């Protein structure tokens, strides 16, 4: 128990120390982010797009995770477009216009993919209906299960 208290105090004090250091003129050199954004919303949009697009070189990774040169280039292209105030929909549309539907991990909701998006739910409803119809035949008895 005492060990935990000691550890907690140490942590707390070091954080306090850090806070002081940060605001003092002795602040040490900081690293720079690879991608800097004007707002948190833009940062989130960027994250959303790079996670939803496939890297075409390392084909089972998305653009966020891949270190392939093409992925780096595409991230830069997306980054610049976000800075240019393009919407995520427009950017995704651009990438799909150049690379085809394959690059998008989220299949577009078109007539080709109705089956894909809707069938799980339709199937569920269907089975439930069949089940209920079948069970209507069996009246719940006093000799219960």
């Amino acid at each position: 128990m005492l060990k935990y208290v000691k550890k907690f105090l140490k942590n707390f004090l070091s954080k306090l120390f850090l806070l002081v250091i940060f605001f003092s003129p002795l602040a040490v050199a900081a690293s720079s982010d690879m991608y800097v954004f004007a707002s948190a919303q833009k940062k989130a949009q960027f994250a959303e797009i790079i996670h939803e697009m496939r890297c075409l070189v390392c084909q089972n990774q998305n653009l966020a995770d891949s270190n392939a040169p093409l992925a780096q280039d595409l991230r830069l292209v997306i980054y610049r477009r976000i800075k240019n105030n393009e919407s995520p929909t427009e950017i995704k549309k651009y990438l799909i216009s150049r690379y085809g539907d394959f690059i998008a991990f989220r299949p577009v909701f078109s007539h080709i993919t109705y089956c894909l998006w809707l069938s799980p739910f339709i199937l569920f409803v269907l089975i439930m209906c069949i089940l209920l119809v079948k069970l209507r035949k069996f009246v719940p008895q006093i000799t219960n299960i």
Partner: protein
Amino acid sequence: MVFFLWRGLEKDPNLLPSPLINQAIPEFSARDLLKDHAILRKKIFLQHWTLLIVWSSWCLTCTEEQAFLLKLQKSHFIPIYGLNYRDKFNLAKKWLKKQGNPFQKIIFDPQGLFAIDLGVYGVPESYLIDPQGIIRYKQVGPLTAAIWLENMATLINQTNKNPN
């Protein structure tokens, strides 16, 4: 389901069909690797068929298609342009000296931005562009005589017969 799995065996999962077939080549502006002061734009593709080859000095497979390209260039059948992808100026020039130069013009694209606009995802790739600047065919992988004859040359001949 078994049917789909069966047919699926024939397909190559790594090949990507291009959505830019029958679309116009996008506008761009880039330096010419061969003539440093020249700026190349979309209009270099107009008024004649063009074969655009995407290559780099660091790409090992690109050397495979060099022999065929040099032969094609000698036959003067079609102008061949190059798109130098993500390369260093000096290294690209050195590579050309060593391997020979079948290109009349070379678009220098060190950051790969124009390549992205074309939907390039690897090297080597080749594009067949018609006199109106429309992309008619894309080949992924090294270009061989067989692929050229079967796909690109026949397309040119067909279009010349029926200009529609």
